[in-house]
């Protein structure tokens, strides 16, 4: 075993100033310790690692590290290098430069759990995020972001379960299989999830089947996604609210907040809890690492009491005219009550909330309306355009689609084969959703000519 006193640090690592031998020695002397080993006296020898960790030799300099990382990054092809039509829960949108400027500020990037007195800016920025999301969602309560939209949906359903005291959860629209996996796992101790299949022709909710499922009773929540996993904005969304409420259940709607400059917020058609992912609001794709979740409700005590997450509130300070901030109903949380709190709260995705707030402030009502219109228009155009390609059918004809949509290949080739050929031609897209079905996505970053190129390329490939 290397005794720590004997550890040789031939250089003080730039991240570890007190590894300078003379400094280290002086500190030990001041404490009156013979070596660092004195401080490890409680760790039994039997569980000590009597050898160095078997790790690659360090990349000693920043230059060497950069060179190494550069080699790894060169093995990725980004969606800026290819023409990408990938969506399905992670979206390629333009991120305004000001968003990056703000979230990359050291003061925000490296802060953590400061108090309002040294981290006033964090509290105000997150409270303003909550407030702007509240305007977008037409509610009064929005939480500090949770990990992602999957978590937000799972928690929203558990909130509905705690409020109603009931067991069943009905999913009424097409749902992403990974999201469903997460929800099933998360609500498992208390709830059973029933997915009511959508009408295979329209891709929309099967209201009769939902009504039948509700007749069995004990339903805590009816859950819908908009757009659904098929990209559909379902005309039945308001009817689902009525069915849920008639059965004494809450209506929980997962929505893409980027649609809400044009489309009605869930609260407008009866949702009790809205939830979703803010990745589309100015967060980079980052290989799926840029997600963050929101939960939103009316300002009712019984609803607020069930949030596990932090809710920042605006309060006065001892000086007239100052805005102070703090945690609303902190005693709900597991920080205060451990296992008696609601679910849990910990480090989640706060900075993404600040980023989304900057995005909403930049966009304003006009920007949000325009981006929604642009995407709706381009999605409809892409569907029309691809429907004209021989060998392609575009199902769910009449349904309104936003960003994501499905196509079906009617020739012999599989969706996987066609996707591979698209990639060879510099186009990412056509994620298989079945043997002959594939999902594509368009956003405001796409032009009409991008879509024309996709159609022309598919024309060559699809036989």
């Amino acid at each position, binding site marked *: 075993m290397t005794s720590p006193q004997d550890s040789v640090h031939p250089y003080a690592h730039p991240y570890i100033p007190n*590894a300078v031998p003379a400094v280290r020695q002086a500190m030990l002397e001041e*404490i009156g310790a013979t070596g660092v080993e004195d401080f490890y006296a409680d760790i039994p020898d039997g569980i000590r690692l009597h050898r160095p960790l078997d790790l690659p030799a*360090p990349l000693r300099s920043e230059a060497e590290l950069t060179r190494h990382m550069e080699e790894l*990054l060169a093995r990725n092809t*980004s969606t800026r290098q290819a023409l990408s039509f*990938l969506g399905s829960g992670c979206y390629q949108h333009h991120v305004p430069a000001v968003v990056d400027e703000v979230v990359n500020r050291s003061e925000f*990037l490296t802060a953590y759990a400061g108090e309002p007195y040294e981290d006033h800016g964090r509290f105000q920025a997150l409270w303003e995020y909550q407030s702007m999301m509240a305007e977008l969602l037409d509610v009064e309560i929005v939480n500090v972001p949770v990990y992602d939209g999957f978590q937000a949906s799972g928690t929203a359903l558990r909130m509905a379960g705690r409020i109603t005291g009931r067991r069943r959860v009905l999913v009424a629209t097409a749902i992403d299989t990974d999201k469903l996996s997460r929800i099933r796992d998360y609500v498992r101790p208390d709830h059973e999830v029933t997915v009511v299949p959508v009408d295979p022709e329209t891709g929309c909710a099967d209201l009769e089947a939902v009504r039948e499922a509700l007749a069995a009773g004990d339903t805590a929540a009816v859950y819908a996604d908009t757009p659904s996993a098929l990209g559909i904005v379902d005309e039945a969304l308001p009817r689902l609210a009525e069915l849920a409420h008639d059965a004494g259940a809450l209506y929980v709607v997962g929505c893409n907040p980027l649609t809400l400059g044009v489309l009605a917020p869930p609260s407008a058609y009866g949702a009790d809890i809205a939830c979703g992912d803010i990745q589309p609001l100015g967060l980079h794709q980052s290989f799926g690492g840029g997600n963050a979740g929101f939960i939103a409700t009316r300002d009712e005590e019984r609803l607020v009491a069930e949030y596990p997450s932090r809710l920042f509130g605006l309060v006065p300070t001892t000086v007239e005219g100052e805005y102070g901030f703090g945690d609303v109903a902190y005693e709900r949380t597991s920080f205060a009550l451990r296992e008696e709190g609601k679910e849990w709260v910990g480090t989640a995705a706060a900075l993404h909330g600040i980023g989304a707030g900057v995005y909403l402030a*930049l966009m304003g009502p*006009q920007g949000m309306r325009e981006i929604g219109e642009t995407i709706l228009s381009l999605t409809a155009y892409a569907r029309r355009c691809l429907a004209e390609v021989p060998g392609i059918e575009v199902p769910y004809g009449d349904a309104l689609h936003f960003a994501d949509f499905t196509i079906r290949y009617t020739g012999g080739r599989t969706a996987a084969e066609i*996707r591979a050929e698209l990639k060879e031609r510099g186009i990412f897209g056509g994620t298989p959703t079945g043997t002959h079905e594939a999902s594509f996505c368009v956003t405001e970053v796409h032009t009409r000519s991008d879509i024309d190129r996709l159609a022309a390329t598919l024309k060559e490939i699809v036989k």
Partner: protein
Amino acid sequence: MTASHAPVSVSPEEARIAGKPRLRRFQQASWDEKLIFELGSPGERGVLVPAADPSLGMPAIPAALRRAEPPALPEMSQQQVLRHYLRLSQENLGADLNIDVGQGTCTMKYSPKVNDQFVRDPRIAALHPLQDEDTVQGVLGIIHSLEQLLKEISGMDRVSLQPGAGSAAIYTNVAMIRAYFAARGEGEQRDEVITTIFSHPSNAACAKTAGFKVITLHPDADGYPDIEALRAAVGPRTAALLITNPEDTGIYNPRIEEFVRIVHEAGGLCSYDQANANGILGITRARDAGFDLCHFNLHKTFSTPHACGGPAAGACAVTEELAPYLPRPTVELDPETGAYRLDDDRPESVGKMRPFYGVVPNLVRAYAWIMSLGAEGLRAAAETAVLNNNYLLHKVRQIPGVSVPYAAGRPRVEQVRYSWEKLHEDTGLHSEDIGLRAADFGTHYWTSHHPYVVPEPMTLEPTESYTRADLDEYAAILAEIAREAYEDPETVRTAPHRSTIHRVRPQALDDPATWAVSWRAYRRKVLGEAGRR
């Protein structure tokens, strides 16, 4: 034209600048910044977006699904948005600007700037998770390699980097424990999880969320987790022990192997919360003490920025026996081709813990951090963090009013939970008051997690990032506040004096009639405005 300066005679006395005071004269930025809703004016724009091509037409939106009124978002020009947020950033301290040792249990260490550059590169930032594997070999390689590094650091057999943060990793471990017992037909029987009061609240809360009954062990007289209480708690209903070691007191439990053995003998699993791993990197490993699962907080131990409370990233490490239950997909290396692929075909998996594969930017940063340090650097980080901690302990325990409860005479690992009980008894001031006064010296101080098992607690964790001078300065700040508490308590009682704002009056936060989570709620409830803006 510049004025000419005729030489004048100045005495050295007049030219002399006084040395800096022992404690810095700090003033936090205070812009008296308005709320964003009070800025801008109708019609202003912060950014333009590509307009819809009129020739493409617009699809019909069903009336009930069309937005009736535009959202009342701010309308601001770009520079106004930037200025507002930059002012808010200046009213925020950030670990880069202060000696952030006062946020104990959170391992506030330096996040190297070069690592931020990697994640801003479009070849990370603009990668889509559903791209073909051959177009993302670099990032899959980083994820796979980071897993290998964490396997060695923990001693475990498999690692998943999918969880969204530390608490999500705790939850993931609990979900795997649940799946493990369900697969063995013991799911109904093993419904209890044991944890300790000094473990992070999320251990108890995650276990409860996953459907377990929680049993909490309190410390014995010396501050170690009570082994007799553990013996009394274990039994056929025990699913797992969730424990932090060293605990948030900084005390390492020397009987940790015995704890693990007792739980294993009862048929339970042992999961190691390694939120406090920073002081033991390369010294001892979860596997060496017999654990079945562990997790790391990459934003703590592996230096990814804390980001105002996330995004963070979690890592779960497990033995081969638990590996089938890991979240899917896993990243696999084909040894023949050297290619990485995603394996979604894992029938016993607990499923997805978050969308896609993990908080990738933080995985990249953690990978780069470990690669820049290597085994020797990790050990130097651990040893230096522990040295810094015991150095600070040596300084702080000399301050009047402070005590170091439990395990008298024993060293601490990477942090210490102190108590200001004596100072409180003498002056009536609370630990929170000291924290508020600390803000006046340009630094952050947090008390501790609830419940306050240690009266008037303060947890300091210096990590390896701070210099000796930093530690001296932090100790001097605390000493000065303690002096004030005894000699001039009003200054402490009314702090902060040099912050962005003064003390909040928090009463409104707990009353449904006045709590205001949004601008519109504030306007309705407090300002009495009817309707919307």
